[in-house]
Every structure is written in structure tokens, then in C-alpha cells.
């Protein structure tokens, strides 16, 4: 699905990603953990195509396309979805209307007819139910005045509407209460098929009780410094990151 090779990226001259290697196959769930500031959101942003970041080295292959060469909208249309760590509020833009535009533009690109209004509305209804998003929120301006948790739910709602191949969830669990966490995780699990995949960025093993990852990676100072099975998350929860960092220092010493 996605092959990230030796990815280096910097912002304003500071190198943040320093050689990321990661492959995610269809049907897999990968968790990325790591201390604050290690570059997790940067990785997500670079994949989504935010142009403040300069990719200085490396390549990303997404379903046979050179991802780094694509516009953000083309990445989305090709099936990449990023749930933002901090979703933006966009006053005056209706959640529903912009999703309709997004879906229909993608269909037009593929040479398909726009989605019938009836089908679209049904989809809105089904998917907002899936993430238990209040119907009124779906109709409001994008994230305007939403609580932190509502914003995160809205991200998953949009993910469900767009039906991506690869979703990158950037700390979608932070700020969620236990019930919301379950709801969001449920949504992700129900949308999971053998043909799609997810990268779940999180600080808490708790989320991984609900969304069970195939692999857990530790990102530290712009590199993946450890990869393990889901049990690694438990170990990190217990011991923190120090032991990994110490190991690293010993190796490099």
C-alpha cells in the first residue's frame, strides 16, 4: 500500500524527519508512538502534502504512485486520508456541502457521475450513526464551535464518508473521554477491510486495546528506532521511552 524509504524532511532549515523507513500493507494497522516533538505529526503532514515541509531525501510510493509528486487533493483522491491532530475550524463552510464537493470531484476525476443526492444523504446518515456524531453537527460549519472530542469524531465521520485506502490518524484519541474513545475506535474497526490500512499515531496504549495494531513503531528524533508487536505498546506504557533511548545511545557509543 505505502512504502516510505529513507524519508528526510525539514522545515525552515531544521531537519525534522531524518530517514524514515516504513512499509504498510493492505489489511494492516500500524501504530506509531514516540515522545512529544519526535516528528509524528510532521510525518503525517508530509504524507498529506503540506507544503511548508521540504522533502530533502527519500521516496514514498503509494499504490504505485510517487506520492511526493502529487498535490494534496490528488493524494486524497488516490485514497489517502489524514485525521488532523488539530482539526481547523472553517466558519461558513458547511461540513456536508464541502464533503459532497469533495466526493463528487473525486468521482468526476475517475470519470464517474456525481453521487445522487439521495445516496449522499443516506451515506451521511449511516456514517454519522457509525461514529455517533450528532446529525446537527454534520450540518454545521466545519468544526466551528465543536468541542475537542466533537472535532475528533468529525474527523472519523469524514474518513467514513470518503472511504480511504490508507488512513493516518494523528492522535485522534487525545481529548476523548472513554465513551468517545470506544466510539471512535469502533468506527475505525468497522471501516477496516482486508483492502485498506491505517497508521495510528498515539501516546496511549489504551487506544490500542480497541484498535489492535499489527505493528508498533517508536519514532524518536525523526527516525523509527524500534518496531515490535502490539505488546511493545504495553511495554512503553510501563517503562516509558528512556530504555529505548538508552539502548540507542549505547549502540551509537
Amino acid at each position, binding site marked *: 500500500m505505502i512504502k516510505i524509504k529513507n524519508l528526510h524532511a525539514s522545515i525552515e532549515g531544521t531537519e525534522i524527519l531524518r530517514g524514515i523507513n516504513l512499509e504498510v500493507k493492505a489489511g494492516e494497522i500500524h501504530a506509531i508512538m514516540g515522545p512529544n516533538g519526535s516528528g509524528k505529526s510532521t510525518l503525517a503532514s508530509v504524507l498529506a502534502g503540506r507544503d511548508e515541509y521540504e522533502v530533502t531525501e527519500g521516496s514514498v510510493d503509494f499504490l504505485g504512485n510517487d506520492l511526493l509528486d502529487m498535490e494534496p487533493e490528488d493524494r486524497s483522491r488516490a485514497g489517502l486520508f*489524514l485525521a488532523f491532530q488539530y482539526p481547523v475550524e472553517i466558519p461558513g463552510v458547511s461540513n456536508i456541502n464541502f464533503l459532497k464537493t469533495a466526493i463528487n470531484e473525486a468521482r468526476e476525476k475517475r470519470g464517474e457521475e456525481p453521487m445522487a443526492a439521495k445516496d449522499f444523504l443516506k451515506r451521511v446518515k449511516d456514517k454519522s450513526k457509525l461514529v455517533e456524531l450528532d446529525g446537527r453537527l454534520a450540518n454545521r460549519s466545519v468544526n466551528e464551535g465543536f468541542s475537542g472530542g466533537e472535532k475528533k469524531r468529525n474527523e472519523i465521520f469524514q474518513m467514513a464518508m470518503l472511504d480511504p485506502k490508507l488512513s493516518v490518524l494523528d492522535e485522534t484519541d487525545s481529548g476523548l473521554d472513554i465513551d468517545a474513545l470506544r466510539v471512535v475506535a469502533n468506527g475505525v474497526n468497522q471501516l477496516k477491510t482486508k483492502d485498506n490500512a491505517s497508521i495510528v499515531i498515539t501516546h496511549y496504549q489504551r487506544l490500542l486495546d480497541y484498535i489492535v495494531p499489527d505493528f508498533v513503531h517508536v519514532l524518536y528524533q525523526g527516525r523509527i528506532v524500534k518496531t515490535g508487536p502490539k505488546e511493545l505498546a504495553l511495554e512503553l506504557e510501563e517503562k516509558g521511552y528512556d530504555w529505548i533511548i538508552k539502548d540507542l545511545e549505547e549502540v551509537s557509543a
Partner: protein
Amino acid sequence: MEVMNETVKMSTKDTFLSNFNLLDFSFDEDFSKDIRSAAKNTIEGLEFPTSKVEYWKYTRINKIIKRDYSISAPENKVEIDLSVPSKNCIVLINGFYSEELSFFESEVGVTFSSLSEAKKNSSVLKEKFNSLVKKDEIFAQINSAYHQDGAFMHVEKNVQAEEPYYILNFVDDSNILSNPRNFVFLEQGANVKVVLKTINTANAGSFTNMVSELFIEKNAHFEINKIQNEADDSFQIATEQVVQADDSTFKINTFTLNGAIVRNNLNIDSLGKNTMTYLNGLYPLKGKQHVDNHTYLLHREPNGESHELYKGILGDSSTGVFNGKVFVHREAQKTNAFQSNANIVMTDSATINSKPELEIYADDVKCSHGSTTGQLDEEALFYLRARGLSKDSARAVLVNAFASDVIEQIGVESVKEEIEQYIDDNYQGIK
């Protein structure tokens, strides 16, 4: 033999005025002829404003006045789109009334006709015509002296008009100079909506100098939607003089869609108690367009409320000017006056000059004013693109959102749709 070649250098003003030499107003009513001659006299003592004049500081009019114009009705049959959702529509072409294209379905208590027709019959017109026009404004005076025709509306006491009334002002040839003149009188308790549209179907060089006088009597409610769609290379100066009596509502929505130089002079004297006034404007600009909105609102009596909202989207190397003045008289206690001008500047070469002004002489009032200028929100743009909207669509969505609170003010559904469509089409719209 030697030929003496003596050229008399005429002033810009005289050259401009010579455009009118061929006009014949002998058919006009006496009272109107008197107004024309008085205006001509007034013009003699006036000059065209330069940018040294504060009121015209940011709008240079040289391009407008140093051009050769013709004043003529179109020779060929005009092909124009008259599909308006109304049974009443006055059509002017190049400033002349078109009997052929105008259409009416009489509604009890509403007189809607050409101005020249009304000059023959209307006592209200005879009494009030030209009374609001300012003596020191040369363009308004030129209109008083040389207007061809226009629309007249008189709505009688307590009449609630059912449909919006349309005034379509077509310019159908190049280099046309026209002086449309409108007059609106709403009696006590009357209620009507008007759509006033200038549409330039030719390509170049015309100048529309329009003046409208509007009288809104006690407890009457009036809404006017003014759509200015001049050609790329054409000019418009539009002046509205409004008086509002007790308990009345006046709303104007000005949409400036095209034109090389467009200047709006909107002057409202809210002379009554407990009045409601809404001034809204939207100017989505492209190319080298220059649009200047000057508004003046006087709260003369207590308990008035006014809301002013002008929004600009400035693309390419366009320039915008907003100068809004709200004056609260000493007597006008309990006035609520809110004024706001917001602009999105899309490029480095577009500029806006914004000057909202409040002058308050009463102590018990609630007033605010503000002006903001910024770019499109990059974070929002990226968010929308990351969800699959093309850059153009994302931009259109954000522009639409920005413009939405002005568009929501439109009380005529078809106008609302038209403006939304315009934004979509011009900022690569939503399908």
C-alpha cells in the same frame, strides 16, 4: 496664402460637456427643464474632482472624463436576456427607456413607469424631484442636467408589493455615455423590494452616471439590490440619495461584479425616530478593477439602528476603497450603529484602502466599527485540499463562506442565486 490655424483649447470639463450638445430636451416638462437649466448653472461653478479632494482621494477619474463618448439608443435590435422572475420590469438601453422591452402588470397602489412618463403625471415627482441631489457634486449635477430617462416608482399607503420590481439598465454599444435617473417614493407603511441592475453587453469604454433619489416615509420598508456588472473597460458612478422617516426600514445590497472604475456614493439621511438601516456590499474584484464605496449615514433622531457590512475579495491587481461614515447627531440617543468592512486580499499586487468612521455626538449610544484585511486562511485551504477539494474549489468554498453573511442579506431569492453562482463561477466553483 497663409492659413491661420487657431485652436481654442477647451477645458476637460467643457470637452466632456460637449458630449451632450446634441441632446434635445425640448419635449421635457417645464419643471424638469427648469431643473436642467439650474443644474447647468451649478455645473459652471464646479470642477471635476482631483485626488487632492479628500472625497475622491483614492479614485482618479481622469480616465473617465477624458474619453470620447456617444449618447445614442442602439441602432440594431438588441438581443438581451430579459428572463427576470417578475412581472414588472423597466428596461433602459444606453440610458434611454425601451418601451418595447419593458413590461408591466399593474398592481393596485403601485405606480411603476419610466421617469419621463411620470414627469407628465406625478405630482409627487413634481414636488420632490431633484430635491435630494447635492449642489456640490458635479456628477450628480450632470445627471440632473442631462439625464435621459430612468425608473419611477410610487407605492401608496400600506401597499405590500408582492414581487420584486426590476430595473434593468443595459449598455449595448461601445463608448456610450448614459445618465440614468431613478426616483422612488414609498408612502407610509408601504413595502417593496427592487432589483436594480446595470448590465454591459458591449465590450468597451462606456460610462454610466446614475442617480437615484429614494424617499422612505413613515413605517415603510424598502429593499434595493443593486448589481453592477459593467464591462471590463467601462465606468460607473452611482449616487443614491435616501431619506428615511420614523419607523422605516431601508436596506441596500450593492454587488459590484465588474467595471474598470466603479464609484458608489451612498448617502442616507435617517431623519426619523426608530429607523432601521442596512447597508451591505460585496465586491469580488479581478484584473485591474477599481471599486470605491463611499457611504454616509446620518442618525438624526433617537432609537435608530444601522448595520453596515461591506466585504471585498481582491484578486489580481485590483484596488478597493471603502470609506464609510456614520454620523450620530446629538439628539440621536439610543442609537445602535454597527459598521464593518472586511477584505480578503488574494495577491501581493491587490490593495485596499479602508476607512470606517464613526462620529458620535450623543452619549447614550451603542456603536462599533471595524476593518479587517487578510489573506485566505492557508490552514483551512490545506484542510479542504487534504479532503480532496481541488485548490480552486477550496478557494471558492472559502470565498463563498467569506461572502455568505452579505449574501444572506439578500431578500430576493433569484438575486441570491445569481450572486452565489457568480462567486462559484469566478472562484472555480462547487459542483
